[in-house]
């Protein structure tokens, strides 16, 4: 059994050995496609293309990678590249078809758990995100602090929740199993499952309070 599979991949790729590509595919391709499909809800063809692009970037930039702590560093590096690719994919979507439109097609219409105001709040945040992306086009790359600022409402509302509630929401959004969350929060799996929907509702209510104009519309109707 291989003790350090990632070190072997990195070394073979650096040597220019095609075996490295085969091992890289074997370890990561299906995994990345599954993440794109199941967690970020990307269509199959696009998910496969995205995973392929991620591995291509890995091969092209392999010389820049360095192990700092353990064999797992490489896995974290690949996932970081994947995360950045998904972010770029969503930004592209925001600039072309629009995030609001793409989410409305598949998500917002089906969603029965939230009221009209809550949906409008989400749409308002998504629209603002799209606008800020458009404003940065065409030649300026989005500076990190500005990205952070435009999603600040989400961060601020999370800060209003209890620590375990924050962990629960952040982790479940990325489909991290309840069992893992349980280790970090000290709550039982059963409790977490029961509270998840309530905490989401609480989050949405707090978020809606930040958009009084949308609440007012709802009331007047």
């Amino acid at each position, binding site marked *: 059994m291989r003790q350090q599979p990632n070190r072997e991949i990195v070394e073979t790729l650096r040597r220019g050995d095609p075996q490295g590509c085969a091992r890289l*595919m074997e370890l990561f391709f299906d995994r990345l496609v599954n993440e794109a499909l199941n967690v970020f809800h990307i269509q199959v063809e696009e998910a496969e293309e995205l995973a392929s692009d991620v591995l291509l970037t890995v091969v092209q930039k392999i010389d820049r990678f360095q192990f700092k702590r353990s064999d797992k560093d490489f896995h974290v590096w690949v*996932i970081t590249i994947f995360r950045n690719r998904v972010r770029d994919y969503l930004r592209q979507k925001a600039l072309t078809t629009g995030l609001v439109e793409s989410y409305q097609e598949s*998500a917002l219409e089906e969603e029965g*758990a939230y009221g009209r105001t809550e949906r409008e709040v989400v749409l308002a945040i998504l629209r603002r995100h799209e606008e800020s992306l458009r404003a940065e086009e065409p030649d300026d*790359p989005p500076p990190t602090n500005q990205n952070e600022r435009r999603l600040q409402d989400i961060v601020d509302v999370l800060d209003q929740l209890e620590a375990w509630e924050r962990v629960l929401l952040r982790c479940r959004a990325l489909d991290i199993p309840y069992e893992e969350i349980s280790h970090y929060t000290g709550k039982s799996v059963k409790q977490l499952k029961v509270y998840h929907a309530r905490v989401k509702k609480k989050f949405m209510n707090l978020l809606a309070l930040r958009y009084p104009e949308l609440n007012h519309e709802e009331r007047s109707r």
Partner: protein
Amino acid sequence: MKKDLVDLLLQLAYLEGSISTRGLYEKIVGKRVIQHVASVDVKRKTLARLQQALNQRVDNAEVPLTIGMFLQQIRTKHAVAASELVSRLGISANHYKMLENDRLSPVKLPSTVWKRFARLFNLPLQELSEMIRRTHILVFFRPSFHLTLARYDARKNRSMKKAALQRATEQLYTRANLSLPTKEEEKLQALIDELKT
């Protein structure tokens, strides 16, 4: 699978770097059960794409332009510690650090160091002289383009673009073979002549 409004928002915030899971997400990805297996055809195409990129990478292995790039490449490819190179070259750690970042002109170090350098890395004299020349040009002209970059940077939030611009400018300066002022050219020539003796 059903999408949820809160999850969508939090995913967006995660991808944009506003929130984090402190490494938990990365850890979990490796443990998940794979539900969808891509077709053999897709995998074959991807593998061919990766192998092509790998071959190109080998063909286009970057030729180091400057002493700094050369040292960085040596350290990355052969996993050599900086301290080992410091002792083998017989220079101070500070000088080494400045050399590796192309912050020190080679003319500031005696020719004996460069002779040792050539022997250590088995470098032909011609190649070393060219690297020394390009490094000296880069170090000499750097303040002038840093002034330009500083003016550019005065406009807010340009740090990412500035870094890319700086890399491109450095490459341009080192490739451009610019003519140095007479005094600088003489200093450089004196070092190269000393290396030949």
